[in-house]
């Protein structure tokens, strides 16, 4: 009984019940934060399993059509100084890594009460996400033009026999499904980041309460982590 009293008193001492973001069913702000974070991590685990299924499918098909996959991935490369190089893929990797850095800097700014900096870093992250999607658009339109479309839409014309085979079309089916699903995640990320920018501009985040910034940050990093695996598997097969 006496411990309960001290507990209540100690909470009063922190001024935590005064925080407008503190929901009554949590004992402390810290407990509330940890609970939200745990929920986010469980969601991220399902994201890994969602993409994991596609990665396993890709791996199985690559072991079945190794020759076709190597031939097909040449279409993801561009001519750089007379040598084939995965230019778009490499630039996008760098763009996404830098955007992960701006994101974590935004979280750090929110944690340390630097409200203007928070907004600035979040806007930078959105801009980098748009650059990523812009490059993806250029890449996709080249493939569309060549008829390298997924599944029944595959219409590539070539004298080379291997390009008409099942394995060649399978590569592009997986390529569009996996990079497409990843691209949808980037789009969702832009939406979430825009919502954060609106709230950050209202000055809602502080060292006392920055849970949404932190959780969207985690989401953004898992999107980056998935691209870290997509890039070598699609663009650097040999």
């Amino acid at each position: 009984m006496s411990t309960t009293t001290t507990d209540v008193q100690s909470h009063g001492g922190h001024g935590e019940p005064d925080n407008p973001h503190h929901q009554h069913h949590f004992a402390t702000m810290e407990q509330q934060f940890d609970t939200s974070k745990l929920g986010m991590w469980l969601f991220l685990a399902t994201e890994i399993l969602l993409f994991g299924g596609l990665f396993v499918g890709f791996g199985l098909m690559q072991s079945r059509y190794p020759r076709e996959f190597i031939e097909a991935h040449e279409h993801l490369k561009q001519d750089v100084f007379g040598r084939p190089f995965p230019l778009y893929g490499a630039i996008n990797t760098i763009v996404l890594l830098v955007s992960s850095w701006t994101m974590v800097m935004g979280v750090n700014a929110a944690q340390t009460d630097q409200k203007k900096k928070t907004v600035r870093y979040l806007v930078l992250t959105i801009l980098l996400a748009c650059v990523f999607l812009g490059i993806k658009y250029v890449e996709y339109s080249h493939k569309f033009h060549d008829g390298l479309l997924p599944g029944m839409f595959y219409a590539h014309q070539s004298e080379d026999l291997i390009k008409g085979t099942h394995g060649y079309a399978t590569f592009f089916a997986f390529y569009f499904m996996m990079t497409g699903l990843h691209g949808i995640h980037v789009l969702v990320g832009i939406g979430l980041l825009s919502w954060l920018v609106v709230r950050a501009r209202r000055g809602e985040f502080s060292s006392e309460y920055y849970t949404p910034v932190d959780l969207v940050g985690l989401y953004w990093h898992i999107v980056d982590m998935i691209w870290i695996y997509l890039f070598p598997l699609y663009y650097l097969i040999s």
Partner: protein
Amino acid sequence: MSSLTESHTQHTEAHAHHGGPKIYTANLFALLFLTVITVAAASFNFGSANVVIALAIATVKAILVGLFFMHLIWDKPVNAIILIAAFLFLGIFLMFDFLDVGTRDHLQPRNMPNMDNATPVPDSMNPLKAAPPQPLTPAPAAEEHK
């Protein structure tokens, strides 16, 4: 009471000051450096080791993102356990799928028309083309029951 408050203040301080721009920036450069290494490694031919090297570097990058950008190194271990569990189950999924496919003669059911010209099913193994099975001879014992 005072010790409780004190320990809590220390805790929140540790919460707010972990990480920091210097560590994040160093981590970014490490990640960019590893990206250059992956691209460079892909231009050499190590045979089947190429995939292993690419995945190993990608995993190091994923660990760096997880530890520093996702704060797992400073976090309560429960979050890291969830991430590791997800990868563990993905590993089990991957392993059993490859064990299954790797130990089969044929990827498709034997009576299915072949989709690719890599491994044609021999006629003797194709129930559609093989000789029809011999009809069973009627049992001579049927009469005796009557």
